[in-house]
């Protein structure tokens, strides 16, 4: 079993190497589907893919081989004999029908096994994270810890995770290729027995710490292409620290630019949609901004999280993300009027958000 696994890995890197060699060395594909970092879900899919891949290569070699042979051997030659008008051969027909059927069975058996394996119930003690897709960002809620964040999913390495996926508006699909396959977020309202919102579930256990890229994989409107996310897989200790941080309030020094920004934030329409832990901002239509300063990106994986980018975003979000439901300083959005912030106020708000670390 172990030898087989090693062989599959070898083959995997061989296949992986071909395209990499083709475009130059050292390329990294942060959203690659063939380089899983999870314990079960990702590798199970990857192993199955390699099994199917090699079967299809065998079939392709046979078909192309026979085709090439036929084209060379039986091309028309001047003065050649008239072909025999063969109309068929029962034995051959049965042969390739049965042959195809056998290959199909050999693919179907491991497929069905993997279907059940990848959809098995998650461990009892799995960390539950509720994932809600919205046009065009992600909400992550950790019910056991009362923590909510957006667009960057923190996960502890080595602990089973049970993602509960649903949508707040239209259908989205949660896809972080290096964790494994995707699963849709449906806007179902409730289970048939009315026991709460009906969710899709995805069970993963990340084994390698790192930052993994993902994005929405079901077309969901104008900015579908800009609905990115990051998974930040960290050690259990770092993860617990992060949870603790998310539950404690942080306030800028009074009199600072950031403090002025906080005041502007709290008296503007910002609070209608955004929440920040430990403040009066409790909106839930937009991303929760608690400790937004520690996020690596803003706008759902759109821009690097710098103060300048925050300024650009708050000034005119629709210019950066078509259709976004957030007003800019001059243009309304999402049913809200323009914020009308001055450049000075803009800089202050950005400074405030950056300070939330």
């Amino acid at each position, binding site marked *: 079993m172990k030898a087989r696994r090693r062989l599959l890995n070898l083959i995997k890197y061989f296949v992986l190497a071909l*395209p990499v060699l083709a*475009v130059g060395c050292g390329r*990294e594909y*942060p*959203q*690659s*589907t063939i380089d899983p970092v999870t314990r079960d879900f990702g590798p199970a*899919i990857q192993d*199955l*893919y390699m099994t*199917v891949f090699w079967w299809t290569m065998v*079939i*392709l070699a046979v078909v192309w081989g026979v*085709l090439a042979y*036929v084209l060379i051997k*039986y*091309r*028309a030659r001047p003065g050649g004999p008239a*072909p*025999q*008008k*063969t*109309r*068929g*051969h029962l034995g*051959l*027909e049965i042969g*390739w029908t049965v042959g*195809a059927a056998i290959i199909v*069975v050999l*693919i*179907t058996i491991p*497929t069905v096994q*993997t*279907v*059940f394996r*990848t*959809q098995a119930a998650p461990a009892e003690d799995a960390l539950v994270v509720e994932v809600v897709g919205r046009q065009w960002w992600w909400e992550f809620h950790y019910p056991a810890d009362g923590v909510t964040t957006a667009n960057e999913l923190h996960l502890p390495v080595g602990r089973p995770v049970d993602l509960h996926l649903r949508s707040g508006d*239209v*259908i989205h*699909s949660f*896809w972080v*290729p290096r964790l494994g*396959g995707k699963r849709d977020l*449906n*806007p*179902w*309202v409730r289970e048939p027995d009315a026991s709460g919102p009906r969710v*899709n579930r995805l069970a993963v256990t990340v084994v390698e710490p790192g930052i993994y*890229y993902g994005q929405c*994989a*079901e*077309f969901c409107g*104008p*900015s*579908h*292409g*800009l609905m990115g996310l990051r998974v930040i897989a960290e050690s259990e200790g770092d993860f617990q620290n992060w949870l603790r941080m998310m539950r404690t309030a942080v306030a800028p020094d009074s009199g600072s630019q950031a403090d002025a920004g906080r005041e502007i934030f709290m008296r503007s329409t910002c609070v209608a949609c955004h929440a920040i832990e430990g403040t009066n901002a409790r909106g839930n239509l937009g991303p929760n901004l608690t400790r937004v300063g520690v996020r690596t990106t803003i706008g759902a994986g759109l821009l690097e999280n710098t103060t300048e980018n925050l300024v650009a975003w708050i000034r005119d979000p629709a210019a950066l993300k*078509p*259709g976004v439901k957030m007003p800019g300083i001059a243009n309304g959005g999402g049913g809200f009027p323009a914020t009308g912030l001055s450049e000075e106020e803009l800089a202050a708000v950005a400074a405030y958000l950056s300070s939330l670390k």
Partner: protein
Amino acid sequence: MTMSSSHGRGAAAELYSDPRGWGATIWSWITTVDHKRIGIMYGCASLFFFLIGGLEALLIRIQLAVPNNDFISAETYNQLFTMHGTTMIFLVAMPMAVAFFNYIVPLQIGARDVAFPRLNALSFWVFLFGGLYLNSSFLFGAAPNTSWVGYANLTSAQYAPGANVDFWVLGLSIVGLSSLLGGINFITTIINLRAPGMSLMRMPLFTWMTFVTSWILVTAIPVIAVALIFLAFDRFYGANFFVPTAGGDPVLWQHLFWIFGHPEVYILILPSFGVISEVVPTFSRKPLFGYPIVVYAGVLIGFIGWGVWSHHMFTTGLGPIADSFFVASTMIIAIPTGVKIFNWLATMWGGSIRFATPMLFAIGLLAIFTVGGLSGIMHASAPVDLQQHDSYFVVAHFHYVIVGGAIVGLFAGFYYWFPKITGRFMSETLGQWHFWTFIIGFNLSFFPMHFVGLFGMPRRVFTYPEALNLGDWNMASTVGAFIFGLSSLIFLWNLARSAVKGAPAPANPWEAPTLEWSIASPPPHYNFAEIPEVRSRDPLWTVPVPLSQTRPAEEPLMPSPSVWPILTAAGISLTWILVMTGVWWVPIIGLAWTAICVYSWAFQPAFPAEAH
């Protein structure tokens, strides 16, 4: 082949124009009920839409050539990819196949026309009006923008308030009606109008595949009609079939759409399988290997195609039992497809293969379609599909299947039957150029998409970040797309030029075995002076003298032209378009018009009055 001399240069021009002038000529086309003229019109319309859809594809490829491109806006991009898919499937691949159904099937079965000639004209005009209406949305800046699958609830009035989705739901309803009518017509024609002696198991394979396709049309189109009507009620009259907050279920749309959508795949591919099954034997000078098996495989595909739809929904969350069922059914359908490939190879085995352009494209299909079929097996494996679904891997797959299968097969059909239709050959030189630029452009465009998908690029995104490192692959695809575009222009130029200047073709230029080659090229409007009697599967190979080449003493009685099909089509289209107003009684105006036209149609004699 003796007949060709009596049709000199310009035989087609003579046949298809009216000596009384331009006006009369146009009128004769508008009112025609001749299956050959309708076939030509279907062909021209589908090529027109092919140009539009191709242009959309090139704009898409420019936008994706480099990361973070802002060549076009997200909104424009979403309209372009939606219309590219919708156009290529409903307005190109399907009607292009129907063009051949129309022109070739009556000739292959030894008939003088289809069973319902005026209904046939109605099908065409409904299709044309529906296609033009769909594309007219560009003029309002409101082209459909929710992808060709139009997943609910993104298409609901709440999330798609503009007219974009209105154009889509109503336009597709109109076009779908055309397919339904066409399907009924061809089933009836093939069952009832076969020449004496042509038993079902003597029918040419192209006719067989038309027969199977027509059954799928007649059964699958109503399913999407139901889905579209639900959606129309949701949007215009406040129903909630797909609105989750009101108790509806958006996943219901996915089921309905794919119960239609997967049989649709076979609607696209089976006609091409039919073409290949004619071309391969003719150019190998051997009868089709295992004729009954190829027929049964086609019929089987038609049936099993109904039981595989949820393999488009492996990520939806249907649970492991449903997933496993659809894995198994999908795997099963790979068997008859594979068997067909082996039968074509066996037909060539031991033959004497001539590499004329029709055969080049047939060989191209065998080579390229196989790649698409095999990547299909990959995502038929549900867990693997969780990675590949809605990624560029799937985009690569279905272009290999639909372009590399359906369209390449129809290209073969164009080169094969062009001499029959026009009495002239297509240029072999330009044909070779078309073939090789196509092979290079197509593969350069779509093969890299496998990698782009494996490296995590989802489809339907208007741009992608530089960090994904996919710029080079995408640039290769873009370059390939432009070479593909060039090859298509060569093809269209070849068609246009050869129609006027091509070398004159005899009745049976390829020494093919089926009945359509027993009559003059182009065929007279009554097709067969005398209905032939059929004694074998390949009559022209077993009977030494072609059967039906003498001019009859008295011309056979043919149906009269009628203006009512086009006027009825206008009424039907108007009815749907008026639904856009959202006021329930307004479409009744269109219905009234339609009723008047149908009434006049019913009382117009089908044949010229003097015949009685």
